[in-house]
């Protein structure tokens, strides 16, 4: 059974866990703590197993050798309660610091892109040259107003939509995440990012800055129905020049229909 190796797929890092190579600034901190936890847990595991197996071999039943009658040792209990508690609390603090850093507010000059999931594909909405996405409301989403755009907004007619995410390398990108029907999720392993897209609201705390160019795939990673397994979209991280060219072409032809029927999704 031969699997065609796609030329677009990134090569794996030669690290021990085969993570796909990181592509974002926030991913550096994530990989840092992932590494730390890996070495911590591996050391603990090895130490415990070595001691355990040593005991299992040394204290196997032998004729004439009696087991040692002991109900325990309170001092040991205190040690192996307080020490791990301190370590775990430290780990929690470390993790939360990285968490808050990843979720700090996006820079003001970030590229705003709205990503909307629906059974079973993705729509992206880019702002017009103002850089500001037209005002919209999830409750206005309907069959002929797929983004719920407020038609009275001055930027309403400038936005355009695509089915692929194209972004310039090195620039912060601020994602506005939505769903039209069920819970989907935005997941890009190379970006070390995951966020559920919940219907009925817009989640605005996902942003990232890429470190390198490449082709990636956005994967829906929250079970969303029969087509969940195939709910993907291309992500292209390109040079600023290539992005500018692409953007200039797209912004000339805003393609979003803003109707006003009152059919709303469930």
């Amino acid at each position, binding site marked *: 059974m031969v699997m065609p190796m796609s030329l677009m797929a990134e090569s794996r890092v030669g690290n021990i866990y085969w*993570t*796909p190579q990181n592509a974002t600034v926030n991913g550096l901190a994530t990989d840092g703590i992932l590494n730390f936890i890996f070495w*911590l847990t591996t050391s603990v*595991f090895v130490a415990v197993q070595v001691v355990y197996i040593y005991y299992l071999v040394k204290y196997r039943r032998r004729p004439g050798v009696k087991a040692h009658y*002991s109900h325990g040792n309170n001092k040991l209990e205190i040690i192996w309660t307080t020490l791990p508690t301190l370590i775990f609390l430290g780990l929690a603090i*470390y993790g*939360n610091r990285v968490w808050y850093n990843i979720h700090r507010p996006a820079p003001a000059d970030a590229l705003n892109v709205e990503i909307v999931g629906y059974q079973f594909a993705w729509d992206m909405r880019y702002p017009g040259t103002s850089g500001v996405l037209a005002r919209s409301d*999830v409750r206005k989403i309907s069959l002929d107003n797929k983004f719920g755009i407020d038609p009275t907004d001055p930027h309403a007619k400038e936005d355009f939509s695509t089915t692929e995410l194209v972004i310039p390398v090195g620039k912060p990108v601020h994602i506005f995440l939505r769903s039209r029907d069920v819970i989907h999720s935005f997941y890009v392993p190379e970006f070390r990012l995951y966020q559920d897209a919940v219907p009925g609201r817009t989640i605005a705390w996902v942003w990232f800055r890429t470190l390198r160019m490449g082709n990636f795939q956005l994967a829906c990673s929250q*079970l969303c129905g029969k087509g969940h397994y*195939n709910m993907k979209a291309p992500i292209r991280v390109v040079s600023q020049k290539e992005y500018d060219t692409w953007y200039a072409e797209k912004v000339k032809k805003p393609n979003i229909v803003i109707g006003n029927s009152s059919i709303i999704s469930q």
Partner: protein
Amino acid sequence: MNVSVTPDIDLALDHPIALETHHHSEKKGIMHYLWSYDHKMIGLQYLWTAFLFFLLGGALAMAVRYQLGFPNHPVPLIGRFLPSTLASDDGTIIPGGYNMLVTMHATIMVFFVVMPLLIGAFGNYLIPLKIGAGDMAFPLLNEVSYWLYVISGFFILAAFFAPGGAPGTGWTAYAPLSAVAIYNQTQVGQSLWGIAIFINGLASIAGATNYITTIITMRAPGMTMFRLPLTVWSLLITSILLIFAVPVLSAAAAMLFFDLNFGTSFFKPAGGGQPLLWQHLFWFFGHPEVYIMILPAMGLVSEIMPVFARKPVFGYKAMVYAMASIGLLGFIVWGHHMFVSGMNLTLSATFAVSTMVIAVPSGIKTFNWLGTVWKGSIEYTVPMCFTLAFVSMFVIGGLSGIFMASTPVDLFVHHTYFIVAHFHYVLFGGSLFAIFSGIYFWFPKMFSRMMNPTLGMIHFIATFLFFNLTFFPMHNLGLGGMMRRIADPTVYEHLRQLQPLNVICTIGAFGLGLSTLVFFVNLFYSIFKGPQAPDNPWLATTLEWTISSPPGHGNFPITPIVYNGPYEYSVPGMDKDYLPQNEKAPTNIQLEIH
């Protein structure tokens, strides 16, 4: 028969105990097996029914693994007979069908296999025996609980035959996918699932009530709380968790049923509802649920290890406090399933702290298990092998939990195969290994025969090897970016390179299936043809080993009086290396009080 309480017994009874056992007529014939007030028969009813569901749940897992290992290949042999909701005409599993297989595999394993085995079977069989009681506090409620479980089983099986098929929303059934018919396209199946969960929950609540009452009020004289075997402690704490957690699931299931069928909007945003409400309700149950599934397993293992190490449990009181901490903390960590759900980010950070802290009591227990084998005299029987392996597998599962407890790492591994690896290590390497250990250990008490040790050792070695072959690579798959619940990983370019790992997991899974067959062959053969077992083949100290195998109706001809803790092995100065709980130590012997 009543025994008067004499003044020179060291008693510290919390409550008056019922010395009078229930008198009910013994039924004869087939009714004896179908309707019984005897906790031992009810325990065996749970055992056999759960084993049937185990075979089904395992078969579903095989189908899942086949599709993941060899996507879009027709399933050999049985593929063409699968219903159209699961597979196409030539037997290839279809995407919607894959979701159904995953959903039903998990639902069945959690609610119809692991809980009924640990709590229904072992709980029922062992609690009265180990506390010196004649039966449970509420024998009729006990049997009703079993039949509620069976009825819930009929509903879950019916879901497979519903128009549209079984639900494919995961055992977690997130709304609004599960709450809106046009989104899930399995309205009937999802509804039947909800009914099954609800009725199954009633059985759990009733059973928990029975166990708590029995343990508190029906202990034999001298059986103080700190002389209780750890299995009993684990089931007491588990029962308390059930009482508080299951009603929340029942309420959520009812709300889901209403959203799906009666136009309410608990979870639908268009009607003013909140999708995240389902997740909070489900996981408020769901997290204690996983401790419900591991605590009895820890109890069983803590019971069996001292017998074959011929040593008391190291740190008995610490073990009790650790289990109680796990139970208590288990109620304030549910948000760690929702770090990336859209929940408030600070709330996520708070749950991360409590989640890290809950690792501590599990660590305490692991160190105490190591202390139990330290300077022991270890005999490698089949139950001991599974018990010893439990410790290692549980440690792996627990350590992988540290990764996902860390909020930024969870951003990377959430809903990937890293999670699948984690929970299979604790549920299979943990709970199921403990169940196997318990079966081999108490089989002689239940059936007065011994299981075949050679087949048992083959089962153990094969299971250990194939289990790790199946689930260890899933850590890599998850860190490599493979998501959960996807019918065909090769659809994603970044996952195609990982496909060989999926093949390895699939081969391991088939090996696991074959290993389990060895177990069942041994089980059934030994029931009918196994060598006769003495009343106490393992020379163990707890009360069930002081009576006949199997125990008669009412268990104890004379109510036992308990003088010692449950693990007095290798007491210095004694001739024999164990002191049963109902035997006074010789006058010159000084026991350590734990």
